[in-house]
């Protein structure tokens, strides 16, 4: 599996309702062997209704300039973080979540 295959894929809740697209993959950094930077374990999917903006970072650590943040945050839709454990199945058509995910 490649990161590029998951990104941009549609996400559906257990009833088949579309929640949005995979905007990013949130990983947890764990200690790796000796000198290495660490191991990245997939922890959650960051799901959004929009396509472009997550890359600019305004959903996360990016705060300024204020006008850009305002414009980009003001667009409809918001980021939803779905834990990887809530993923029931995934295929080329999309990702389906389990009952417990809430959505």
């Amino acid at each position, binding site marked *: *599996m*490649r*990161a*590029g*295959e*998951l*990104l941009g894929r549609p996400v559906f809740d257990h009833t088949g309702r579309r929640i949005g697209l995979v*905007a*990013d*993959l*949130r*990983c*947890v*950094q764990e200690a*790796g*062997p000796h*000198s*290495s*930077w660490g*191991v*990245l*374990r*997939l*922890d959650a999917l*960051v799901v959004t209704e929009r396509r472009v903006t*997550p*890359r600019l*970072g305004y959903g*996360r650590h990016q705060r300024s300039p204020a006008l850009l943040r305002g414009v980009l945050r003001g667009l409809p839709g918001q980021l939803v973080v779905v834990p*990887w454990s809530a993923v029931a199945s995934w295929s080329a058509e999309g990702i389906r979540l389990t009952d417990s995910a809430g959505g």
Partner: protein
Amino acid sequence: MTTVDIYLQLLDRQVLDRDGRLVCKVDDLELQPGPDGVPVVTAILVGPRALGPRLGGRPGRWMNALASRLAATPGDDPPRIPFGAVTAVHSAVDVDRTRDELAVDPLEGWVERHIIGRLPGSGHAGG
């Protein structure tokens, strides 16, 4: 616990080798299920066969076609750098191997041997 958003903080960053030379970009990342079934990042995927599918559309198809013509290794698997070789992630990604050891980019070597290396002064020290 540190979290990393890999699209925002890892993909498309520059990869530097042990000597600080530029190697490639993080064109894509490979994930494989760990012992507990949760996917773990196992490798950096490099080159047009990694980037092409991400581009999609016509440019992606062109890049794939070009890549399969130029490919040194057959099949669809792009060259990879095991993720364990990564020593740091900052504005670039540091790897504890040299460019030659990684050998992720056969085309660079080809251009060097057949075109640039043949021009006079190609080994002249930079400044």
